[in-house]
């Protein structure tokens, strides 16, 4: 009998680590050369920093676009790569990257933290500033509680049934989890530094109704310390808006302080690194391991500029070398999308 919870291994030409603007555009350049790609990203959506940090902010330096928002750029890129039908594996992070081929015939096994395994000829690392991970509030001793009591994400809601939960934050994550957990927890307390919430107004209304009905608590303040024993939390020590000190009894704390970018497992894949960036050559943007390429903000080379337009260029050049690994017997003919009927056919135009 097959284990239905283990995903089947996927064989493909390229695994692209990161589905931000550069990872997305790489699909286009690879697709023109008949190279199939699977993309992996830790966020539940595509677009990387553009979608997560500045979706509404105007960008003025994308060639051909006097002004375009972060989200607008992501949407355009998704339309541009649609003809190549890339597959996205979101909400997961690549944890292992093993070499199973040779220098001249590279092959890799890529594993994510959701248990998905890929067998591929090349890997394109388009990880930008690193993977977005929850920010840890700098509270002394918090590490000791991370196994049993402090969680930065909720994987299995059922595990928190009957717990006394303190949720810290004022955005959608904090409010959504407050509303999700209130029915199954023993008691939920929501804590925020001010009585004004960034979250969707409807969620805030529901929270206030629960507070009014004494079905949960709302405290205004900030957590300054933790109390407990043997890695199990018993209370959070807090400072109120009036600077008064108070405690909230809890066995579970969920802090939602936003996301930060971390290099993460990339540091363990045996690649040369220079100040948390991956050196790449400027002819094909290959790393110190043949078959592994680094494009976009994650790479470094003399003169490197951390611009989206640079990442686009790097992806185009890397695709040429990827083609040589994926189709070693084929000759690569340089063609223009304006005049090549075969490219236009792949794009589904004319």
């Amino acid at each position, binding site marked *: 009998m097959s284990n239905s919870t283990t995903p089947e291994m996927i064989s493909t030409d390229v695994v692209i680590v990161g589905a931000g603007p550069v990872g997305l555009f790489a699909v286009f350049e690879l697709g023109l050369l008949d190279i199939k790609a699977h993309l992996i990203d830790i966020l539940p959506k595509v677009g990387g920093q553009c979608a997560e*940090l*500045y979706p509404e*902010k105007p960008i003025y330096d994308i060639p051909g676009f006097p002004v375009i928002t972060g989200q607008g750029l992501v949407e355009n890129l998704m339309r541009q790569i649609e003809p190549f039908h890339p597959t996205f594996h979101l909400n997961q992070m690549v944890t292992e990257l093993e070499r199973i081929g040779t220098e001249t015939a590279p092959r890799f096994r890529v594993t994510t933290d959701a248990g998905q395994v890929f067998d591929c000829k090349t890997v394109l690392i388009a990880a930008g500033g690193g993977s977005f991970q929850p*920010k840890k*509030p*700098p509270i002394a001793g918090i590490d000791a509680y991370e196994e049993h009591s402090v969680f930065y994400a909720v994987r299995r809601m059922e595990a928190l049934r009957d717990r006394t939960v303190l949720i810290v*934050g*004022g*955005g959608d994550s904090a409010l959504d989890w407050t509303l999700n957990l209130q029915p199954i927890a023993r008691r939920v307390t929501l804590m*925020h*530094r*001010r009585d*004004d919430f*960034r979250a969707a107004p409807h969620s805030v209304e529901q929270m206030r109704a629960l507070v009014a009905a004494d079905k949960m608590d709302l405290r205004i303040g*900030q957590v*300054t310390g933790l109390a407990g024993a043997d890695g199990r939390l018993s209370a959070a020590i807090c400072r109120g808006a009036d600077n008064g000190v108070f405690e909230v009894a809890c066995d579970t704390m969920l802090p939602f*302080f*936003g996301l*930060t*970018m971390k290099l993460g497992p990339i540091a363990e894949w045996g690649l040369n690194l220079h100040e948390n960036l991956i050196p790449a050559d400027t002819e094909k943007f290959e790393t110190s391991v043949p078959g592994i390429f680094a494009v976009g903000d994650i790479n470094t080379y003399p003169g490197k500029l951390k611009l989206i337009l640079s990442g686009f260029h790097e992806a185009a050049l890397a695709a040429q070398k990827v083609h040589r690994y994926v189709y070693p017997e084929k000759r690569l003919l340089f063609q223009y999308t304006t005049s090549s009927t075969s490219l236009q056919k792949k794009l589904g135009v004319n």
Partner: protein
Amino acid sequence: MTAITFIDHQGTARTVDGVDGATVMETAVRHGVPGIEAECGGACACATCHVYVDAAWAEKVGQPASMEEDMLDFAFDVRPTSRLSCQIKVSAALDGLVVHTPERQA
């Protein structure tokens, strides 16, 4: 030139010249003042340029706008004088400004 003084959590003061129109964060970064990270480069998208405005200057500098307040939610140990330094514009009126940098940025 507008003089801006940054005092770190141990009390060490560093006074630098700010350019009118630039932000307090840019002034710190340009002069290599420690204690301000500015991960997002000044886009009001990260809360790592968090400072406490000195009590004597708090009224002149003013309170954060709502977008900045939203980002301050992600800072640590937020106090009534907290501001994101990428949102404070340097001007002649702030000549002599004193800000305190926190022990750590979130």
